[in-house]
Structures are given as C-alpha cells and as structure tokens.
C-alpha cells in the first residue's frame, strides 16, 4: 500500500509535495486541480505505477537541486514521469538514463511558409499526398540517405551541420535549431556498433506512434510582438515535424540502462527504482553516457533536418514554392539532459537539467536562444493531437525561477494504447477528422486508433495550466489541416 501524498496548493496551479522519507528535495507539480485529482486517484487505486511516485523517486536521487518538478502534461513514464524535470549539481549530482528515455532528443521542428490558408487550399490535398510519398514513415520504412560508417560517425558528431555541409538545408536552419543542431560533446566512440548498424537505414525517417508531420494554419495570434519575432502571422501555413533519434537513440538508451545499473552499484548510489539507474556526472560512466546521449541528440536534430529538406522539395513540387521560402522557426527537443547555468537561492550554479517530455523554455535574455528571439524569450513547441491544436509558447523569467526554464511538450495521453484501440476505430477517426477539415494520410490505420484525439488530454487545459502558473506564455495557436502519420 502506497503512502498518501499530502499535496498542498501553494499558489494557483502550483502543488508542493513536501519532503518525506528519502527525498532530498520536495516535489513541485504544476497542474490544474483536475489533473491533481486524477493523479491522487491513481494513488488511491494503488495503480501499478503512478506519476506521483515517480516524482517522489526522482526527488530521492543524489545531487538533485531545488525540487523534482512535474509540468501540466504530467503522466506516468518509466523512471521519470513524462513532463518531468530534474536538475542535478554538475559536480555532486548524477546523470540518469531514465531522465532522457529511449527516444533521445525527440522533438519538434516548426517550418514557416509565406503562404496563407486560402492560397494553399486548392493544392492542399496534392501537397499532403506528395508529403506522404516523400517522407519515409511507419515501421520498417527506410531513409533515402546512404552513408558509410565514417559518414554516420560524422553525422553523430556534427548533427545538422553534417547535412548542411552536404548541401542539405542551410545555415538559417542551424541558427534556429536548439544548440545550432549540434551538441558539441558528442563522441561516436561511446556509441555501440549495434546502435550505429540499426541507424544506417533510418536517417530521415519519421517513425510511428505519436510522431507526425502536419500542415497547420496559424489560427490565432496570442502575442503579436513575440509572433512577429518568430515570423508568425494569422492564417499562415506552417509545417510541424515531430520525431526523434530513431533506432540509434533507442539502442543507446538500452545499452546504457544496463551500464548505469552496474555503475550505480559500483558507486553505491541510492536508486529508488531500477529504471532510475544512474552514475555520477563526474565519472567515466557518466561522461560516456553524456557523450553517447549527445550523439543521439545530434542524430535527432539531423533526422528532423533531413525531413525538413524532403518537405521543402515536396512543397516546391506541389505548390511551386521556392525551398528558401520554407524557413525553420525553431527546432527543439523534449527528451534530453543539458548542462546549464541557473540561479539557485541567489547563486549561479552549473546544473545538468534532465527534461523527460519537457522542453527548454528559457526567458528573455538567455544566450541559448537565437539572437532574433532573445528579447521575447525562447520559443517552445507544444504538439497537439491529429484533431486538436498545437501551440507556440515562449519562456518567461518566472519559468527560469520555478522550473529551470522548462515547459510543456504536448497534451499527454489520457488512455493507454490498448484502451484507445478498443474505444476507437481508425477509419472512423479518419472520417471524423475529415468532417473537421483535416486530411489524414497514414501507413497504419491501426496506429490511428491508438493515436485518436480522444486518447489524449485536452491540450487547451494543459496550455492554460502552463500559462496560468506563468512558466510559459502563449504566442500562437496552430490548427492541423493535413496529418501524415507513420
């Protein structure tokens, strides 16, 4: 029987889980009351795994700073909750594979076009069909890029830069990609041959599950100043790419979970559950994982970069639009661990911030944001479902203080895949979407049922909770017009 969590609402939408037992810091959960009630209900029902116990377990890890944080899209993950943030002292803390997950640097790239909804309307279906054929997607799909072992190592070391050097995409893409599309501590020698072998045929593939490519329209501008800085305007056509590091990241995660379990024993670390196996940041094992994780992150940046290239070609083919007019607004990951400097109790400290199902959402003035965005803050991209809105938000000073500059990444699932597959029928979902003006192309109608909009929480509530607590502010609401699924 689990311990009942005594959560107290400190201010509206901010819930404190007081320190108890082995917790080194308290838990802080940013969510509306309905979400909190559901999390507590999971506890009362003695659910097999619960997001609150995952918040608590993260709070027990060595060297954690401030609080174990969960954001409004919180739901149970493995190790960390999804929507979880854990910051660890760079000298005394640990690096946790479960704080990053198997899909390293899974994220979203948002592309802008100069076209409006009315301009694209006559060619929308043709464009959707062209994109569906151009972008490899679904289980077993292979990418178009053929590479040698040395090429793949270069891609892991250089990320998107590697592709730009080969004439794919431009430096504008790099400028508007988190980390400029390359985490510099990447070391391919820390990645197993097996991980590399699995990746050869998967560079530039979308994947399946919740990954997608969408043609969207900017339906509402919510912050004109920030929208102008990001290059967004009302009725504009934009494209979103949601995917990650594919098999390479998956294998790095699997390899290092095993290695970290041994490391945790070797260093005598308190690990509350096996999925939170970890190693000191300042250890051979910790450094090796971070170097491998950076390879996974670079692989994900390059993957979205390659897909953006395919999107530009398809746009040109279907609409005649010159590829240079399809610009990267931003590319941001939501499964990673990064060294960052934050002010903690008045002092600047170097921390390793893990974000599992959470993005960076830095406030104004941070060097990590592109120069053009620095005055308004870091853009964060929040993916919706096939039938609901996505959002562009920006980070805030309040977020820097409360969440180490972290924001939400999506709606978060409400139903398991099995339950969704029983409740929804793929073809019915497709018909429903079309009745709302949303076209769907998919390689797996069975996957569509699992990904039905009704299987997710209401993104409007999740965004509202995030913005009520002040950790992000809304910039634009995007509505899907065409969806490509794996």
């Amino acid at each position, binding site marked *: 029987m689990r311990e009942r969590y005594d959560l107290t609402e400190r201010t509206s939408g901010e819930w404190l889980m007081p320190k108890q037992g082995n917790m080194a810091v308290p838990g802080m959960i940013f969510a509306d009351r309905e979400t909190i009630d559901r999390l507590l209900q999971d506890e009362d029902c003695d*659910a*097999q*795994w619960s997001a609150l116990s995952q918040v608590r377990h993260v709070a027990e890890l060595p060297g954690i700073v401030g609080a174990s944080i969960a954001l409004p899209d919180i*739901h*149970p*993950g*493995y*190790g960390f909750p*999804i929507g979880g943030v854990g910051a660890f002292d760079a000298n005394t803390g640990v690096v946790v594979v*479960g704080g990053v*997950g*198997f*899909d390293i640097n899974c994220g979203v790239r948002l592309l802008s076009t100069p076209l409006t909804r009315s301009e694209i309307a006559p060619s929308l279906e043709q464009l959707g069909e062209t994109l569906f054929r151009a972008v490899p997607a*679904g*289980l*077993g*799909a292979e990418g178009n890029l053929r590479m040698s072992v040395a090429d793949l190592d270069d891609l892991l070391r250089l990320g998107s830069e590697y592709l730009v050097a080969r004439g794919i995409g431009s430096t504008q893409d790099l400028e508007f990609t988190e980390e400029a599309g390359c985490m510099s501590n990447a070391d391919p020698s820390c990645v197993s041959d*097996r991980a590399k*072998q*699995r990746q050869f*045929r*998967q560079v530039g593939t979308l*994947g*399946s*599950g919740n990954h997608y490519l969408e043609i969207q329209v900017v339906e509402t501008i919510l912050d004109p100043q920030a929208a102008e800085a990001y290059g967004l305007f009302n009725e504009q056509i934009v494209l979103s790419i949601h995917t990650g590091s594919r*098999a390479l*990241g*998956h*294998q790095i*995660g*699997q390899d290092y*979970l*095993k290695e970290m*379990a041994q490391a945790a024993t070797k260093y005598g670390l308190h690990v509350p*559950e*096996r*999925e939170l*196996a970890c190693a000191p940041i300042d250890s051979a094992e910790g450094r090796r994982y971070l170097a491998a994780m950076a390879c996974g992150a670079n692989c994900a940046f390059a993957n979205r970069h390659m897909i953006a290239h395919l999107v530009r070609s398809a746009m040109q083919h279907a609409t005649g639009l010159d590829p240079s007019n399809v610009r990267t607004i931003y590319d941001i990951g939501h499964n990673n661990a990064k060294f960052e400097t934050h002010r903690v109790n008045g002092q600047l400290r170097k921390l390793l911030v893990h974000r599992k199902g959470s993005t960076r959402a830095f406030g104004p003035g941070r060097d990590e944001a592109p120069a053009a965005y620095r005055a308004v803050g870091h853009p964060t991209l929040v993916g919706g479902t096939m039938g609901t809105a996505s959002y562009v938000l920006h980070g805030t000073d309040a977020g820097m203080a409360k969440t180490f500059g972290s924001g939400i990444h999506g709606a*978060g*699932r*409400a*139903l*398991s*895949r*099995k*339950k969704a597959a029983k409740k929804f029928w793929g073809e019915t979902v497709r018909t429903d979407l079309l009745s709302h003006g949303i076209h769907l192309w998919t*390689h*797996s109608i*069975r*996957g569509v049922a*699992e990904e039905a909009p009704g299987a997710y929480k209401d993104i409007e509530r999740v965004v509202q909770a995030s913005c009520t607590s002040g950790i992000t502010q809304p910039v634009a609401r995007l509505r899907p017009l065409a969806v490509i699924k*794996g």
Partner: protein
Amino acid sequence: MAIEWLDHTADAGFRASGASIEIAFCEAARALFSLMFAVECIDARTEFQITLNAATLEDLLIEWLSELLVQKDLSGLVFSRFELVISGNETVGFSASGRALGEPLDRVRHQPGTEVKGISYLGLAVSCQDGIHTAQVVVDV
C-alpha cells in the same frame, strides 16, 4: 496467447504466463511483436538463432526482448514463433538459447502498428506461483 495487458497510459505493459519459464518468455516475445505487427500474418519460415546470458531471470528477459528488437532492424525479419531453453540459477547466472522464426517484413501483409523503442525496467518481474510462470515488462512505444 496467455497475455494480460497492463494499463500504462504512455507506454505498453504486459504480463505473459505459461507452464514453464520458457513458455512465459516466448509468449512475452509474441506479445512484443503483436504490438508492432499482426503476428498471425507472419509466416514462421525463416529462423534466427539466439544465445544470451544474464545474471538474473529479469535481466535475461530484458536481453531476450531487446535482442529481438535489434534483430528486427538488422535482419529485416519479423517474428511470430519462438523457441527457447533456459538454464542456470541465481548463483551462476542464467543462459538461454533458442530461435525466433519469422519472415522478411511485408509492410502490407504484416500491418505495421506502433514501433517499440525499448524495453524498460519499470515493473520488470519474473515469478512462479502454483506452477504458473509469469514474465512482466513495460516497453516504450
């Protein structure tokens, strides 16, 4: 299939059971592939040999399922039938040898669904009660 699906919102969990540890492991493998493909449509006409070692049965389960995921990508095969012999004990560790049977992926006939990204340690359990062996795991999808 002796599979009980567990309710995990983000990922997928299952508990496979059988009259022997080997049957439980093979059922778990079939559950893994049923998440990704229509396993009943996969002909067991090509085999892939597998040998594994691990300190515990729980670790052996992780090794077994993750090895199958790897071979799916490397060989291009998808599997529907599994045979395994497990030996060893807690003192000396466990080993397994066997084979997975399937055929090259056919993206129409096998009806691909959602890719499994990795095998997590969450809820990982291998047990035996009243002669029924169970293998429980949560996978990232």
